[in-house]
């Protein structure tokens, strides 16, 4: 295992993906799965080899000497490891998902995307980072579109916002290069941290440009509305990858560049609000706003994938708040929540994909009662939403607790209030999803639905185990963080396998899980010694003596699923939701009008002549005014 493995991890998937374009679909999915096993294996052995890097030099007149460097840093390896493990699980899932009826042709593009992802996490210089970033963007666009017009509309929205961010990043990269003379990321971080004291305006410009890029990719405010389109319209197995891994690129960028800059800046250099530098405070507020918006929008959606996409937006808001506090606890919490979100959102989307696979339905209110026929899928979804709601003993509680501890350390109570609102609101939409799809009445159409195919079930079971493990033994994840924290210029945090220490208290997660198990045992005992129970049919309900079938109310209509929270819709009518979306649409329409105006000049000959005159006048005006 030499450092030559590093370019292999990046380039092999890309080339293999290109090759796969000419191969049959079924074979593609097998190759995809097998290569992911290889990649996961290689990546997990990388860690033990210590710091490793691969450099590649070339010179171009325009860029000067470029030293492209792929290297294994603690942060990069962490993201690489979790994404390759998750991708492996998803590829196993996809193997069964893409049978004759449901198959999509996205495997080659997905493999190229995996290569680009590895490139992003391994890049130590901006050129490699940028190349991988752009490759990731356009391949994911084609995957989201996957040949359907409506899906492509969702995808292009995402791509436009993302590309806008990428262009901002290009500007930022050049500004950094002109300032430091090097393309290396670490020297950029150091220089910008220094510049915060001396050349404040320049440093803030660079930071803003990069932040725009990373905000756009991670769907934080004001770029928060693309997941509900893109994640929902993407192929069902790919939605898990989108929500689980792809949304984390922006988080990685923030953790790579923005947070260390502020961590390296000595205290007092830059004015702080509530103990946090004011740019980071603004980031925290925007992230909290993202959480609130995501939660409210999720509560009132009827489509299950859109609902989960908004949930992703809300969760990324938590992560953003965590890292915006700039403390080691916050940074660790952000990373922890990244991992947890990957697992539970992956599990949730996987179970949704399984449901869609078996029933063909995507609207929640047309489903119902599937828990009785698809138990494994149900349990995955259940554990997923317990984790998403942040309930002990699953993993989500640990990371959310840490985020709150970081906020309490900095006494950012108003941001914490907004996050609590989002947390409570999460219950609402998560439970709605659970009930509407899996509980309630089972429609006669779906009475013969079978459980998900074996490989899909297996990947879901593995995800469940991981969620439980990270919940009961937080140290399995948090133990990795101290190297990363130290490398970013922060202090290490105190953790053990069983407990986490925050700013106000410490929690022993294993203890919590054990007492919960004990309590359940006690109740189970009571349950067992209680009286006999008799099994009755689902429709045999208390209905005040009437029979619903008398009024043609079968299980379909008897199931309470549509517009679940309609009574409280009015509560949120004062919120200006959708303002940002309207803004973007207005911008798009303005550009269309501009374009139409320009092309209308050629509509007839006199206009052509006048355009010449207009041009001359324009030249004179610019020449004289400037």
């Amino acid at each position, binding site marked *: 295992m030499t450092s030559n493995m590093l370019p292999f991890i990046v380039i092999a998937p890309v080339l293999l993906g290109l090759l796969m374009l000419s191969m049959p679909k079924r074979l593609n999915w097998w190759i995809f799965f097998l290569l992911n096993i290889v990649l996961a294996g290689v990546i997990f052995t990388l860690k033990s080899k210590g710091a490793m890097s691969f450099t590649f030099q070339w010179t171009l007149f325009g860029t000067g000497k470029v030293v492209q460097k792929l290297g294994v840093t603690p942060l990069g390896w962490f993201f690489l490891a979790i994404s390759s493990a998750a991708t492996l699980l998803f590829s196993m899932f996809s193997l069964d998902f893409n049978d004759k009826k449901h198959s999509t042709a996205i495997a080659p593009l997905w493999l190229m995307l995996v290569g680009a992802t590895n490139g992003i996490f391994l890049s130590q210089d901006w050129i490699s980072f940028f190349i991988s970033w752009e490759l990731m963007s356009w391949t994911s666009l084609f995957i989201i579109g996957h040949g359907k017009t409506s899906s492509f509309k969702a995808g292009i929205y995402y791509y436009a916002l993302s590309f806008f961010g990428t262009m901002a990043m290009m500007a930022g990269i050049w500004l950094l290069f002109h300032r430091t003379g090097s393309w290396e990321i670490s020297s950029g971080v150091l220089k910008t941290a220094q510049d915060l004291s001396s050349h404040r305006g320049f440093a803030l410009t660079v930071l803003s440009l990069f932040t725009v890029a990373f905000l756009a990719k991670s769907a934080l405010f004001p770029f928060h509305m693309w997941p509900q389109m893109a994640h929902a319209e993407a192929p069902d197995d790919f939605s898990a990858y989108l929500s689980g891994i792809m949304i984390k690129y922006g988080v990685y960028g923030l953790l790579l560049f923005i947070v260390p800059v502020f961590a390296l800046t000595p205290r007092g250099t830059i004015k702080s609000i509530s103990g946090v530098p004011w740019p980071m405070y603004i980031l925290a507020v925007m992230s909290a706003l993202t959480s609130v918006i995501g939660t409210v929008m999720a509560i009132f959606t009827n489509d299950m994938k859109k609902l989960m996409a908004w949930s992703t937006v809300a969760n990324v808001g938590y992560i953003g708040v965590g890292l915006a506090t700039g403390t080691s606890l916050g940074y660790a919490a952000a990373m922890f929540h990244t991992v947890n979100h990957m697992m539970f959102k992956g599990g949730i989307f996987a179970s949704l994909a399984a449901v869609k696979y078996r029933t063909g339905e995507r609207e929640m209110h047309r489903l119902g009662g599937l*828990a*009785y026929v698809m*138990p494994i899928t149900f349990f995955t979804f259940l554990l997923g939403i*317990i984790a998403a*709601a942040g*309930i*002990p003993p699953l993993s989500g*509680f640990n990371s959310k*607790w840490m985020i*709150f501890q970081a906020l*309490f350390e900095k*006494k950012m*109570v108003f941001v914490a*209030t907004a996050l*609590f*609102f989002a947390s*409570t*609101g999460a*219950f*609402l939409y998560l*439970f709605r999803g*659970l*009930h509407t799809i899996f*509980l*309630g*009445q089972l429609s006669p159409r779906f009475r013969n639905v079978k459980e998900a195919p074996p490989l899909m079930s297996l990947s879901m079971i593995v995800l469940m185990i991981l969620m439980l493990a990270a919940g009961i033994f937080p140290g399995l994840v948090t133990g990795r963080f101290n190297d990363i924290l130290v490398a970013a210029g922060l202090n290490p945090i105190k953790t053990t396998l069983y407990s986490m220490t925050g700013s*106000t*208290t*410490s*929690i022993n997660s294993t203890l*919590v899980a054990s*007492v*919960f198990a*004990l*309590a*359940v045992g*006690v*109740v*189970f005992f*009571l*349950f067992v*010694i*209680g*009286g*006999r*129970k*008799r*099994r*009755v*049919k689902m*429709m045999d*309900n*208390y209905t*005040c003596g009437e029979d619903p079938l008398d009024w043609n109310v079968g299980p379909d209509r*008897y*199931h*309470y699923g549509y517009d679940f929270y309609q*009574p*409280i819709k009015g*509560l949120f009518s004062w919120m200006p939701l959708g303002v940002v979306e309207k803004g973007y649409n207005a911008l798009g329409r303005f550009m269309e009008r501009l374009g139409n105006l320009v092309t209308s000049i050629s509509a007839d000959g006199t206009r052509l002549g006048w355009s010449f005159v207009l041009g001359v006048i324009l030249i004179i005006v610019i020449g004289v005014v400037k």
Partner: protein
Amino acid sequence: MNAYALLGIKLIGVSFGSMAVGLLFMGLGRKVTARIQRRMGPPFYQSFIDVIKCFTKTSITHNFVMDLGIIMALGGLIATAFFIPFANFSILGSSSVVIVLYLMSIGYLGMAMGVSASGNPNATIGISRALALMMGYEIPFVMVIMAMLITYNSSDLLTYAVAQSNGIGSWHIWKYPLGFIAVEIAFQAMVGEAPYDHMIAPAEIASGPMVELSGKYLGIGFLLHAVQLYVETGLIVNLFLGGASSWYVMLVKMFAVYFTTLSINAVMARYRIEQGIRHLWIWAGSFGLLQLIYTRIWG
């Protein structure tokens, strides 16, 4: 016997103890309500009889999820009860209020899951209202707790309880008056009594979640309410009323809180769900917010 087994036995004792305390309160509460309504009311041990009777009857079940959900619900609540300091003594050593709040949710979630699996829309409507209401009362509650948190720099309930043990003047009820008002209003919703008894809403949605419960399920449902009372009144006592130095003072204080709740319940009607949430946000919320701002800036 090693320490873990001993702890386990103690915890089992606490489980049954909390259930007993809760049932006792429920029974006494029925007596109180009856007297307010100028009736005699059942004896104070009535709830015990009810529960035992429920457990002896045959019950119906619709599917395995119902069983699972109900068990999970009571299990979660009892686990929460382990974390409430009783008479300034915390059996598990740590009693973080954040754990209490989140662990209670598993009780909710389990019950919600179990009763929704029964297939009766009334149950689900009750649950959806309960969840929506939760959004209403959690926010003010949490704001006040945060105020305390940043004052003491700890989220441990035991710390709060011990800090108030210097006589009645040191109780938080005087130190955080606005917060107490906010919490009292929110508490009414937390316990599910009028004017915020949307979850049960007897005449409207046929008891909401309880509609399909019978036999031992109903028994567990009763126990759920009992332990919920124990947990929530215990929470208020530890937060605002100074904890307690002995078990009977603790029980008296807990019942005092419940008494207030019952009295309000007996005389008020129910709000509509959106009115309820709005009032919680506006009234409890503003008091809570004021308390938070005050504590953040001048506390």
